[in-house]
């Protein structure tokens, strides 16, 4: 809506107000602290005028009007509350209760439900109409969310959120009249639909129709007055989305994004499946006491001092026996900076470990092995550029695995601005937002990128010579022998043209490319990014996706080994492993399986570790500890406060590492700030 600044005089409940033209009555009332109840309205979504709960009386008209969709008019007199209006609102709520199954006592949303709150507010102590008892199906095919259509009031918030925020267009109204239902795609079940399980519909649902299947429903009902809301951010990927966590009795009840049309984030408060649901999943059980393996292979519960003492002693013994370089340290890039720095100090200074690495160290080394990472540092732009760029080229693969949220941004931007997105990949996984896809075998990727660069150069030169007419290119011969299809050739032309025409294109390097030790391809893609960046910019239009939440932070601590020792793919000596992961990837397991002595600091009792490790030391999860994290572009450092208390008796990670350090007379430095590299320094 266009915002003209002419003020309009209106009267609401006898108060004369000056509001901007074009605002709705509801907005005007809210701006001036006048309460109007709403149900289908959501501040982050477009207005719909469906529920009629926000009805007001305008100029004494016999018909009440929905205030959310009625714009203010000069001289208008509005009454928001009188007997007739309250009666109308109560009747609507009664109808909603009567229409489907709204028996609060078996709904997980009770206590935190907007429909219920309105019923209380309107003093609906009984129903004057009878219930319909019409049966609707439930969709419990998704492991994350269940949808019970019997609790749905058809406010359409989920439909609008799915379209306007997630950019997915999965949810829609199906059928008509009393048979109306919210449906997925063409009446699919959620698991068979194109739903990304981002859960934005769950967040905006005012009733218990869409609910989280993973959180405990037995322990507490989500009553607002017993829940604490903690504003923090999600450290599970480098985007560090701001979140609100609902906590009750030291249990996480819900993760909400800061949904707002103007919160400065390109994602508008959208969260992904990982951020919203993964925290509820812990496939492995929690480790609550330190465990030490006895000679006969059985686990015994040890006390803390005992377990930590044993670990350090064993490490030292291995060092004496096998020489200087027989100790290894491996840490997860999900951990906050403070824990990583302490870990590094303990291993490097205290135990003189031969090799220190993070789970994602290979990505760092591959980048370091490029021409740029070696000679010239690689600079990156802010990830928020994804919300501003007019063409995006992704090299490597689907960014869904590492940064799932990006696809929502791309989808929405495709709908809003017809954003074109190119993907060059050796994999067949093509996300739906991609407009131009080139499938190329990984051994030809570098050549293809060179050809693309040549084509872009060619087009730009042509553009300069002949005004705006861009002709076809001479770089097709370069493509010969790469085994790419005719479709891919036209995609190639289209991508090159889009890059040449775009004013602010962005190159995104996916983790599947940085994970491959192919410095030519990486060089090629960085070359391309530098080529397309306007010379006025100090940072190239390049964004390198990082595999884990605090990868950028971990790389900045300098703890990633520059070189891998020969046997390191299969570490054999004493190994101290520290991680927050609730499940560990095959690649990590392959690296640790041959360790002679394996001590693990982890919150979870993984099956693999239960089989292989020698000492298991519990630690708090990321929810249960504070720490500093770095966004994936390395440009932002965010401090995250502890959200819930760790299980009783579990030491904080810093206490664990300090206690181990004290045993070897290592004074762990309290001043950690100095260890962080300067913010502006490039990561690689």
């Amino acid at each position, binding site marked *: 809506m266009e915002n003209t600044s002419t003020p309009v005089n209106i009267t609401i409940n006898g108060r004369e107000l000056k509001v901007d033209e074009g605002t709705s009555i509801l907005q005007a009332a809210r701006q001036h602290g006048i309460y109007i109840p709403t149900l289908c309205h959501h501040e982050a979504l477009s207005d719909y005028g469906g529920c009629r709960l926000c009805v007001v009386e305008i100029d004494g008209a016999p018909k009440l009007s929905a205030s959310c969709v009625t714009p203010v008019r000069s001289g208008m007199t509005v009454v928001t509350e009188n007997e007739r209006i309250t009666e109308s609102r109560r009747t609507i709520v009664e109808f909603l209760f009567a229409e489907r199954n709204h028996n609060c006592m078996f709904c997980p949303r009770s206590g935190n439900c907007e429909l219920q709150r309105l019923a*209380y507010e309107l003093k609906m102590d009984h129903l004057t109409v009878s219930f319909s*008892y019409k049966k609707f199906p439930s969709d419990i095919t998704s492991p994350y969310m269940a949808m019970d259509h019997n609790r749905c009031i058809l406010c359409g918030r989920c439909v609008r959120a799915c379209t306007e925020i997630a950019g997915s267009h999965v949810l829609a109204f199906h059928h008509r009249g009393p048979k109306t239902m919210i449906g997925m795609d063409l009446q699919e079940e959620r698991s068979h639909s194109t739903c990304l399980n981002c859960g934005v519909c769950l967040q905006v649902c005012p009733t218990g129709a869409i609910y989280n299947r993973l959180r405990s429903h037995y322990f507490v009902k989500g009553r607002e007055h017993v829940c604490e809301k903690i504003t923090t951010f999600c450290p599970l990927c480098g985007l560090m989305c701001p979140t609100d966590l609902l906590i009750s009795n030291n249990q996480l009840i819900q993760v909400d994004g800061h949904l707002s049309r103007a919160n400065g984030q390109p994602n508008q408060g959208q969260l992904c499946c990982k951020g919203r649901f993964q925290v509820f999943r812990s496939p492995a059980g929690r480790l609550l006491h330190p465990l030490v393996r006895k000679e006969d292979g059985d686990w015994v519960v040890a006390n803390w001092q005992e377990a930590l003492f044993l670990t350090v002693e064993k490490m030292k013994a291995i060092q004496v026996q096998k020489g200087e370089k027989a100790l290894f340290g491996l840490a997860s890039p999900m951990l906050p900076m403070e824990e990583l720095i302490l870990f590094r100090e303990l291993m490097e200074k205290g135990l003189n470990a031969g090799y220190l690495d993070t789970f994602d160290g290979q990505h760092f080394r591959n980048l370091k092995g490029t021409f740029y990472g070696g000679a010239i540092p690689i600079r990156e732009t802010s990830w928020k550029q994804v919300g501003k760029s007019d063409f995006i080229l992704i090299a490597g693969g689907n960014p869904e695995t590492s940064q799932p949220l990006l696809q929502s941004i791309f989808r929405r931007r495709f709908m809003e601005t017809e954003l074109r997105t190119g993907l060059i990949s050796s994999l067949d996984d093509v996300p739906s937002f991609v407009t131009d896809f080139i499938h190329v075998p990984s051994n030809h990727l570098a050549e293809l990128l060179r050809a693309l660069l040549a084509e872009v150069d060619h087009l730009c030169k042509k553009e300069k010579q002949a005004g705006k007419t861009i002709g076809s290119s001479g770089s097709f011969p370069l493509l010969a022998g790469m085994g790419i299809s005719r479709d891919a050739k036209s995609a190639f032309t289209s991508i090159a043209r889009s890059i040449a025409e775009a004013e602010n294109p962005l190159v995104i390097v996916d983790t599947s490319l940085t994970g491959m030790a192919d410095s030519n391809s990486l060089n090629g893609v960085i070359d391309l990014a530098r080529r397309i960046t306007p010379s006025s910019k100090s940072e190239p239009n390049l964004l390198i996706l990082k595999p884990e939440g605090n990868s950028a932070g971990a790389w900045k601590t300098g703890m990633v080994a520059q070189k891998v020792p020969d046997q390191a793919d299969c570490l054999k000596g004493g190994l101290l492993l520290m991680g927050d992961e609730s499940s560990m990837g095959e690649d990590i397991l392959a690296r640790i399986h041959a360790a002679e002595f394996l001590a693990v600091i982890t919150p979870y009792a993984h099956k693999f570790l239960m089989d292989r490790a020698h000492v298991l030391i519990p630690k708090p999860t990321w929810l249960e500890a504070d720490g500093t994290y770095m966004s994936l572009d390395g440009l932002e450092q965010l401090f995250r406060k502890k959200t819930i208390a760790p299980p009783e008796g579990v030491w904080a990670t810093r206490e664990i590492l300090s206690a181990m350090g004290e045993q070897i007379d290592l004074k762990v430095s309290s001043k950690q700030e100095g260890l962080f590299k300067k913010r502006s320094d490039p990561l690689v």
Partner: protein
Amino acid sequence: MGKPKIATVWLEGCAGCHMSFLDLDEVLIDILHQVELTVSPVTDYKDYCFPKVDLGIIEGGIGNEEQLEIVRHLRRQAKIIMTWGDCAVFGGINTLRNWIPKTEVLERGYVTSESTVNGVVPIHAEIPRLLDQVIAVNHVIAVDVYIPGCPPDPEVIAYSLTEILNGRLPVLPGEMIHFD
């Protein structure tokens, strides 16, 4: 004039509302001093033709023909009818069966349940027949006071009784209404 007389009935419900009533603690003694409790599950005095009472209290929804009779009798004998709890007010958790045909419900309960061997659906002149659906009390008789909640808090029950004893028909303020 003697003390006001109260009758309470427990229909299709879990007795939770009566438990909440007993949970009034010392307030219960005050209230019992002021009233005469006649027919009630608490006194175990059963007379479903009911004496004339000033206040009839109903807990539970109406699920069978007997319960239908009881509420009709009570309405005739009581000056004021108060419904306690979600079951009496809305139908409550018993209405779960309203989404399933009655024959299927009986079949599941008496024949196909896992612990049943050679089960039959009982039919006898003395066994009240199940209604097709569980219904709220106010859909059968006129109700004067509604106290929703599952169960209503003792404070809410105390409030409503005190109001009635003081000669007012209570209407719950918004913060006293809850459905769970």
